[in-house]
């Protein structure tokens, strides 16, 4: 069953076409990777899926609902971990999570339990009552992730979730996401520009470049299709360029620098 579907989706910002007629779908219960270099249009697509941006053209279905006409039903269906910081610095870690729990109507006992569990997983237990403004960039990122997972949604969107995280936290995080996926059947949609992450975690992958989908399928299919041994080679074969060398747009570049520096 298709739980996310985009058809002929377009987003224009003035003269830039950030997303250019993309069509693809994600099946219920899948872990799906949206792979592409900086500036490819991943965040813009996710914002349209999650009711934050109106598409210029095309249609979207999220859990059977249209984000433009049924935003409320769509919002009930997903959780999101944004690419950019979105915690409240003037509140404590615990207060940020508590706020989220109330917003998503999680019963009090479950809320407390999950907050404790997640704080452990992202290793912020000892800092739970500290103001977020005292946190490093990496700690804020971990808090953000804990918050996004708190309400166990039907679909979870993760926009470059592991950018700037150390390998250990990254592994914990993926273990937790996998177990949510297996135990509760949560559909996972994540964007990344790390090929190996997509290769290792995803059931299926869509590769986006310059706002268009250049290929989609299982990691194996993509490799077979291009007779490559790695996704890296497949990407090269599909787009004619090496993703590592793809120069990021100025803003994305700065944004990533900022995150790394704050860590």
């Amino acid at each position, binding site marked *: 069953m298709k739980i996310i579907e985009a058809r002929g989706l377009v987003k224009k910002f003035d003269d830039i076409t950030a997303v250019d007629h993309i069509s693809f779908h994600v099946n219920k219960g899948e872990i799906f990777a949206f792979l592409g270099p900086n500036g490819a249009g991943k965040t813009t697509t996710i914002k349209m899926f999650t009711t934050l941006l109106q598409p210029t053209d095309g249609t979207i279905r999220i859990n059977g609902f249209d984000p433009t006409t049924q935003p409320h039903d769509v*919002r009930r269906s997903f959780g999101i971990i944004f690419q*950019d*910081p*979105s915690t*409240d610095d003037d509140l404590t870690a615990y*207060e940020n999570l508590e706020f*989220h729990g109330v*917003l998503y109507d999680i019963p009090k006992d479950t809320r407390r339990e999950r907050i404790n569990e997640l704080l452990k997983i992202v290793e912020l237990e000892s800092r739970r009552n500290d103001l977020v403004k005292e946190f490093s960039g990496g700690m804020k990122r971990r808090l953000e992730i804990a918050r996004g997972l708190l309400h166990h949604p039907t679909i979870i969107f993760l926009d470059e979730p592991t950018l700037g995280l150390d390998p250990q936290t990254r592994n914990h995080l993926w273990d937790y996401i996998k177990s949510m996926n297996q135990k509760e059947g949560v559909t996972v949609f994540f964007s990344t520009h790390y090929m190996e992450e997509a290769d290792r975690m995803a059931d299926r992958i869509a590769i986006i470049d310059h706002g268009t989908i250049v290929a989609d399928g299982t990691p194996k299919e993509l490799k077979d299709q291009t007779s490559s041994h790695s996704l890296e080679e497949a990407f090269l074969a599909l787009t004619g360029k090496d993703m590592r060398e793809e120069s990021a747009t100025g803003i994305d570049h700065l944004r990533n620098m900022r995150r790394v520096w704050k860590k």
Partner: protein
Amino acid sequence: MEKIKKYLRVMYILWLRQIKKYSRSRARMIGSLAQPILFLVALGFGFGPIYQKASGENYIQFIAPGIISMSIIFTAMFTGIEVIYDKQFGFLKETLVAPVPRWVIMVGRTLGGATVSTLQGVVVFFISLIVGFRPENFITAPLAIVFMIMIALLFTAFGTAIASRMEDMQAFPLIINFLIMPLFFLSGALFPLDNLPHSIQVITFINPLSYGVDGIRGILTHVTHFGLGTDLLVLCIFVSIILLVGTHLFTKIEA
């Protein structure tokens, strides 16, 4: 019913957030008290003797309600306009994707900002007592809080509405200088509305703040220009309109 309870819980947590943020910001608290104190002292004592000579009345008695209103307007505007900070620092997205109608978010935020601003007004009321202000009747004086709340709601919602359409803080000084200052000066906060040139009088009539100041003054000093009933009615109408407009604009925010 379950739905209403849920909405109330969400409004409560939004309200609580505003209160916590405010109480954690000493600088903001002190900063927003400095201005009314300065106005009370400088104007009250500076213009006091002239006013006394001209009208035979005590100027502190006249301007204290105006300065109380002023402190509420500024705090309310600032808390409303905080939406821009939340936009810039990303927190707004957290509330915009939540499965809660935007009007609930808007109302929760507004109630939080209005509470903080009303408290600010109450504090300024006590400061004015120190400077020599005397309400006619201490028993009915607390009723003035009704008008303080109305002003607070009006300007918090107004700030939020404006902020919904702004990308950054650049236009903020313009709003203060070309909107808030004129509203304040032409509200009867600092001088009586009788005997004004006709054109200015018209402006003071369509300025919602005039009714707020007049209401507070009416309760505290038993002097009113429009009458308390009119004051309350006009404020209710303005608050409803601005809440509707604000909610509409807030609902349209993209991130």
